[in-house]
């Protein structure tokens, strides 16, 4: 009769908890957005900062509109990743430290529900953020690109999901907000330096070039550059989008695995 509890780390988890419930995923996304709605300043910063930085960039390249075009397009893909990374890592760290994560995982919530709920909420936010930034870049700042703005939006959205996934993942390794924000330069900056924004990737030291092939942000920037130069959807664009989407999915799965129902 008596069944022994399996230990350690509750190694055997019934399949039922893995199951995804659209209802709970949506409820989680709505809850995350509701939390943000009580924090108007964060929303304003999230939405306006990319726009203001683009305007700044516009005047920085006052005499060099071509550079503005290429760097501006890259930044449209980079902003969502950075902001969603920061917001998610702090939000999930808070869930861990305030005990709400422990409570949720003691309730009938699948880990996928939680992770996808976050991805959905921040995905929505990223779409608004990227639409605003792209709109301003195209209409007000005359950012000149050959392809469709929808493709820019798509890359921006995938990038935001990647940022959310990375933020969720690193929050497992942070025990304080101080540590969490330090992960931003640790995870994002190397990608920023190697993504081809500062120097073409094929001009880098070969070892670094090889590393840059393994970093998802490189593909996000490449994808943006494709849209900049080609009016149609190119094979390279499809590849770039798939790599970013695949990386986001992979990191989300790894991030979900860091959520433990049993902790020490």
């Amino acid at each position, binding site marked *: 009769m008596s069944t022994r509890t399996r230990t350690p780390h509750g190694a055997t988890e019934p399949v039922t908890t893995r199951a995804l419930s659209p209802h709970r995923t949506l409820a989680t996304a709505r809850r995350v957005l509701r939390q943000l709605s009580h924090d108007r300043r964060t929303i304003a910063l999230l939405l306006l900062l990319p726009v203001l930085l683009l305007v700044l960039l516009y005047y920085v390249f006052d005499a060099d509109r071509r550079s503005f075009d290429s760097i501006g397009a890259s930044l449209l893909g980079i902003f969502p990743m950075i902001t969603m990374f920061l917001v998610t890592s702090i939000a999930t760290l808070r869930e861990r430290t305030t005990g709400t994560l422990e*409570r949720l995982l*003691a*309730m*009938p919530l699948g880990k996928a529900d939680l992770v996808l709920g976050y991805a959905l909420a921040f995905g929505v936010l990223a779409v608004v953020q990227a639409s605003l930034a792209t709109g301003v870049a195209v209409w007000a700042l005359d950012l000149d690109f050959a392809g469709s703005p929808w493709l820019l939006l798509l890359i921006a959205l995938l990038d935001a999901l990647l940022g959310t996934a990375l933020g969720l993942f690193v929050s497992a390794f942070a025990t304080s907000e101080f540590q969490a924000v330090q992960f931003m330069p640790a995870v994002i900056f190397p990608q920023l330096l190697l993504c081809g924004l500062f120097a073409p990737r094929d001009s880098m030291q070969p070892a670094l070039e090889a590393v840059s092939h393994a970093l998802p942000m490189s593909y996000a920037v490449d994808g943006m550059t494709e849209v900049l130069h080609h009016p149609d959807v190119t094979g390279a664009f499809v590849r770039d989008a798939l790599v970013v989407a695949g990386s986001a999915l992979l990191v989300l799965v790894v991030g979900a695995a860091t959520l*433990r129902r049993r902790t*020490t």
Partner: protein
Amino acid sequence: MMNNHPPPAVRADGLHVVRGGRQVLTDLAFTVPRGSVTGLLGPSGCGKTTLMRAIAGTQARVTGTLEVLGRPAGSAALRPRLGYVTQSPSVYADLTARQNLDYFAAVLGLPGAERGRQVEAALADVDLTGRADSLTGQMSGGQRSRVSLAVALLGTPELLVLDEPTVGLDPVLRRDLWQLFHRLAEERGTTLLISSHVMDEADRCERLLLMRAGELLAEDTPEALRRTTAEGTVESAFLHLVDRARAADEPWPAHTGQKGRTTP
């Protein structure tokens, strides 16, 4: 006749927990009968929270037998049947009380109309209807812990595990909450396991588990404890048992007593 009885709410045997490399719970054996209000008492650091986490299925490195409602603690099937209130309130500070409850009710899978009804009932149970639309982060400590308690009441769980739910509350509110606990046991047949280190709350319980330094000192009714120790109050009975256990801990002088454990 006997086989028709449902299994006890909690049954532990040879239960051990290791935390931070230390044995925190040692060889616990006890049962919590269904529909009872059981107090878990003991000094700070004796392992009350650890035991409750083990029962809720959030504690790692648990060995031995621990059955909750007839299933191994931590089983997925138990999650909707058990309400757990952590010692520090685990609710979202940036949501209102009602929004918090609404989200957790959705996680429990309560359908729309039923969800609204249960949320209002839970708010009324903890006397927060008037503050339902205040941000939880702007509430007093006692109010916040009542929001946390209200969350656990959702979905009418069969077992409520409450970690110091009345700490920091005024006498009137404490009395009201204890009345609520007994009402839940009587009207809904809910089993309640309530920890406290305030001994005057012991007499409000039908049964007591007395702990010290990770071990169980006694498992009995308050009257029986007072009788077997020939003390007037549960507090002095507890001190009596602690002294006896301490004396037994010491290698000399040879003491007659074993570890004090009264059996019902």
